[in-house]
């Protein structure tokens, strides 16, 4: 009898289990969570690129940036006027003749905007890429060689990190009469490599202790070969992320420096456009069109690069990638009346 009372619930539970709450099939689940298979053409790319290309933010940023780069590259063809010369009366309102109006000096704003984008983007990319290259060299050497090399290099990385960049640049630039955009770009690279060096060093340290690097060392591979073949490919997303951040920094800092008058006033960049707009008191006199175009251009470029960085961040962190799905997973649970405590 006592045995039977024990068997009873057991058998009941077995039969319950047979029908109980079956899971949807994978296809049903993919439909419910709105997960789409990767289109065929994407699968040819490395997985990091695939992740990036499936991220709406990253792709949007890339498209915006591409449009800007193309417009800047084609500036001489697209510009209706010479951006360096007077093209009309001062402060002409935007209209048919001058698409975005003219500046106080009578230069065509639209032509200046295109030409300025050419310079600003070039300087930004030069600064960003050079800073990343310096950071990459220093970071990998410090992380991979370790010991004394690491100590010395880490010291310089830390110095570069704690030196206040803008005040230092002001000193540097003030001793160079009328710093050209190229000089500003190089100075920015010289002061802006600390962050990427730090990230890359940490990354190198973690890759260095992985099996495939140890295996390559045991097989007697040359050190530079290990760095190039084993370590570099495994941190490409960190390098790209660092370069994006450094480029943002480059474009913004260049604009800031020229805005306060440290650049060469005769060059045409978004920064000098703002400088002249501020100088000629265009906001006070109602000539908003002299301020808004370069301001919006800088903001949109910055925003595009930030969006790209969101995409790159997700390549490096599976947690951030998963964050995208959490809303849909919560809905799935809610529909089944289950409490939502996904984390």
């Amino acid at each position, binding site marked *: 009898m006592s045995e039977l009372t024990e068997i009873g619930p057991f058998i009941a539970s077995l039969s319950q289990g047979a029908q109980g709450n079956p899971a949807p099939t994978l296809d049903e689940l993919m439909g419910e969570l709105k997960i789409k298979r990767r289109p065929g053409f994407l699968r040819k790319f490395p997985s990091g690129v695939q992740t990036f290309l499936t991220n709406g*933010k990253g792709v949007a940023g890339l498209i915006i940036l591409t449009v800007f780069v193309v417009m800047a590259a084609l500036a001489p063809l697209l510009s209706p006027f010479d951006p360096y010369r007077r093209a009309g009366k001062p402060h002409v309102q935007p209209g048919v003749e001058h698409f975005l109006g003219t500046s106080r000096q009578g230069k065509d704003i639209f032509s200046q905007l295109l030409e300025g984008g050419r310079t600003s983007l070039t300087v930004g990319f030069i600064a960003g890429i050079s800073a990343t290259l310096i950071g990459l060299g220093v970071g990998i050497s410090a992380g991979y060689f370790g010991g004394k090399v690491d100590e010395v290099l880490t*010291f310089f990385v*830390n*110095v570069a*990190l*704690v*030196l*206040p*960049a*803008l*005040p*230092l640049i*002001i*000193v*540097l630039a*003030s*001793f*160079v009469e009328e710093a050209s955009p190229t000089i500003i770009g190089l100075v920015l690279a010289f002061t802006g490599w600390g962050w990427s060096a730090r990230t890359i060093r940490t990354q190198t340290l973690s890759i260095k202790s992985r099996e495939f690097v140890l295996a390559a060392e045991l097989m007697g591979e040359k050190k530079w070969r290990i760095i190039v073949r084993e370590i570099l490919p495994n941190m490409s997303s960190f390098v790209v992320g660092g370069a994006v951040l450094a480029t*943002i920094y480059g*474009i*913004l*800092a260049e*604009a*800031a420096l020229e*805005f*306060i*008058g*440290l650049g060469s006033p005769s060059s045409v960049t978004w*920064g000098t456009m*703002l400088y002249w707009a*501020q100088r000629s008191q265009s*906001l*006070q006199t109602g000539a*908003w069109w002299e*301020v808004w175009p370069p*301001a919006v251009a*800088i*903001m949109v*470029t*910055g*925003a595009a*690069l*930030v*969006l790209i960085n*969101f995409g790159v*961040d997700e390549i490096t*962190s599976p*947690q*951030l990638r998963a*964050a*995208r*799905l*959490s*809303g849909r997973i*919560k809905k799935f649970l809610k529909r089944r009346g289950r409490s939502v*405590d996904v*984390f």
Partner: protein
Amino acid sequence: MAFLARRLGFYFAAFMVAITLNFFLPRWMPGDPTTRIFMALRGKMRPDQMEMLKKAYGYDGSLLEQYGQYLWKLLHLDFGISTVNFPEPTSSLLFYAAGWTLFLVGVATFLSFGIGLVMGIYSAWHRGGFFDSVFTPINVMMNAFTPAVVALLLWYAFALEWAVFPLGRAHDINLVPGWNWESAVSISWHAVLPVLSIVLVNFGSWHLGMRNTMINLLNEDFVVLAKAKGLSDRRVRYRYVARNAILPQITSLALSVGFVFGGAFISEVVFNYPGLGKFTLNAIESRDYTFIQAQLTLLTCSVLIANLISDVLNVIFDPRLRTSGGH
């Protein structure tokens, strides 16, 4: 304590690198400041006057003597004589301006860090939700809107068009600042837009930094264990996740101080605020090299002190740094 001693050693070394750089830069460049003044006066200065000028600015004698003299003066907080307001010492203007800049930067950093942390914690906890998907990207984008643009637009909208806030200055022109209610109101009122312009371009990075650190920590075993223990959400969020996520933020906060100073410079130019940025700009235009160099020395000191404070905070908040041999 070994940790702090090591850091202190590093800061001293970094400071030496900075001031040495500051010493050699003008000497590497073609034509030192005195030569430039000499040139600017187009022969109105006699060679013996030129020698006196060189002496006054510390450009006489051998390089080693100059360097020794430079260090000795720095030790006495003597930043040299202003090139423009000759023979006023630079330090009086420098410290006056630095006071206002530190005020702006301090308030703005406090606000942007606080706002960023609160938003970061919230959006990490509700990641993928409405607030996170909309405001995380927007806030971070504002980070890339460059101080110049943000300050100009704020100034245009709130000071010029709608005239809600004053157009510039740190306080009413007739007011002599002092420790009284009237000064406090006037100074705060004048600081709103400059502070706002710095906060707007800075809080996004704290938002993102805290959010991403928290999200990565959510996957740590100790957080899952805290959740498994049935602790309240509040306790898990603050005592387990945020408590750990804040450590790297403190370090980045100190490192970002130099960057915030940069933003403050721009705001001061736009809002005509009597801080280091505005006077540095004046100094650039009038070729007052002493001031330009002095602001670098002063700001380097400020950043190093900020880093030292962050180290002390890290030691207080992170027990792993307290025991000897911690790393």
